[in-house]
């Protein structure tokens, strides 16, 4: 079933993990997909795999902290596909430092990549969505944007910013039929979290706090993002979708 038939979607951080899973699922559901990432080679490989013989997948190098890059991505998208219906702000980096360990530089880098990028992305994409009569923006926050876990201060703050920014954006753009929602995955096995999965203590802890008997997969997140991107969720805006196997139920 083509749940995103003829829609045009930009997905950042699409070279691996959740972004790659979203791009694949979107493409399978009939969307024209613009995949972006700073990791150019990895992105090309993933895009080629998804593309197959379809011409409706575009892959572009993209530093999400750069305003110039964003303008370029949007122009390329319009040139190739004529409009933008969906923006998935998925790109992000991890950080595992406590507040005392974290440096100002380290802190600022995480905020720039994780949350400033969401602001810039919405700033330049929303006017295009207004022109075409509406759209859906999905911002990847985390359960760490909701609860506190020691040792991830910069990451927590950046994800909290995304949660809150999504709500104010939802309010600002509702009258233009642009929906904005945030998604909050728990621990999902991706390249970003690879080091955590290598630590048996962390895996054991995760299993002990997650009621559901397995850890998360990128497809779990992609399914939720697909729902929010599609017209099935056309009365849903300014809200939060938690995908965490029940972790934050406690």
């Amino acid at each position: 079933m083509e749940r995103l038939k003829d829609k045009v979607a930009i997905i950042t951080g699409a070279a691996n993990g959740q972004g790659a899973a979203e791009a694949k699922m979107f493409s399978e559901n009939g969307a024209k997909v613009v995949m972006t990432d700073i990791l150019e080679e990895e992105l090309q490989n993933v895009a080629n795999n998804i593309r197959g013989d379809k011409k409706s997948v575009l892959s572009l190098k993209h530093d999400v902290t750069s305003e110039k890059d964003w303008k370029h991505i949007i122009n390329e998208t319009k040139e190739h596909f004529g409009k933008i219906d969906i923006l998935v702000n998925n790109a992000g980096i991890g950080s595992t430092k406590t507040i005392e360990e974290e440096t100002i530089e380290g802190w600022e880098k995480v905020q720039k990549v994780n949350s400033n990028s969401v602001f810039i992305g919405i700033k330049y994409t929303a006017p295009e969505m207004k022109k075409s009569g509406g759209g859906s923006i999905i911002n990847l926050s985390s359960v760490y944007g909701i609860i506190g876990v020691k040792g991830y201060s910069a990451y927590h703050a950046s994800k909290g910013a995304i949660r809150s920014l999504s709500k104010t954006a939802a309010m600002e753009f509702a009258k233009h039929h642009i929906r904005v929602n945030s998604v909050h995955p728990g621990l999902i096995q991706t390249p970003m979290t690879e080091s955590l999965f290598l630590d048996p203590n962390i895996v054991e802890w995760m299993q002990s706090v997650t009621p559901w008997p397995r850890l998360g997969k990128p497809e779990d997140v992609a399914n939720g993002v697909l729902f929010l991107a599609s017209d099935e969720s056309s009365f849903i805006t300014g809200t939060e979708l938690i995908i965490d196997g029940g972790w934050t139920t406690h």
Partner: protein
Amino acid sequence: MNLENEVALITGGGKGIGKATALLLAKKKAKVVITDINEEDGDKTLQEIKGKGGEAIFIKHDVSSEEDWIRAVNKSIDRYKFINILFNNAGIFTLKPLFEISLDEWNKLMNINVTGTFLGMKHVVPHMIKNKKGSIINASSTAAINGAPNHSLYGASKGAIRSLTKHAATEFAPNVRVNSIYPGFVKTQMIDYASELSNTKLDNQASSVPLNKLGTPTDVANLVLYLASDMSSYITGSEFVVDGGLSAGPPVWEIKE
């Protein structure tokens, strides 16, 4: 999204959100058990599903009665062998200042909205655990999130469902997922009744919603379908708002454009 081989029991399936969900799940090939206290309404949903080639049965059901639940579950199992989706949707609404609510009124609404949800889980979950698979969706409301005058009884019942859902989710993992949903203003007979009780025009209510419209029963049914299906197989104990942005932020000053 295909629900072939799934059996869904939907309470309050005769009207509104329950009916839209029954139709949508049947369209996705689920076998649907429609229950409702109103036989005429329930039968209409049944005929509509059958008319479209879907598979369903109707059972008359007072959700506040344990006997009725036992009967409904037994009939469903007799007919379809198992139940792996339960939508605790049936509920009633009232609007009244707290000090004017009689104990009888309080108990009646709580029995339908809260006890009904408890009994549903109590009698359906053992069958889900036997099959090692199940998804339960409990209908709460944005009235469980935000406070408003005259909503104490309805709001408290929906708040109980919110909390009950989270506790149940931790108890029934790893076999059964349990999530709650929070519709805002959705075009149903319940909202017509609310509009009548409060003497407020529905158009005025719609303009208070950031998306500037009321939701449709299908908007909610789409969310229930997502939570019922394997698309959400890593989601449990969580909350899903479908309210056009109503609960994301209170009304504030607007900038002139």
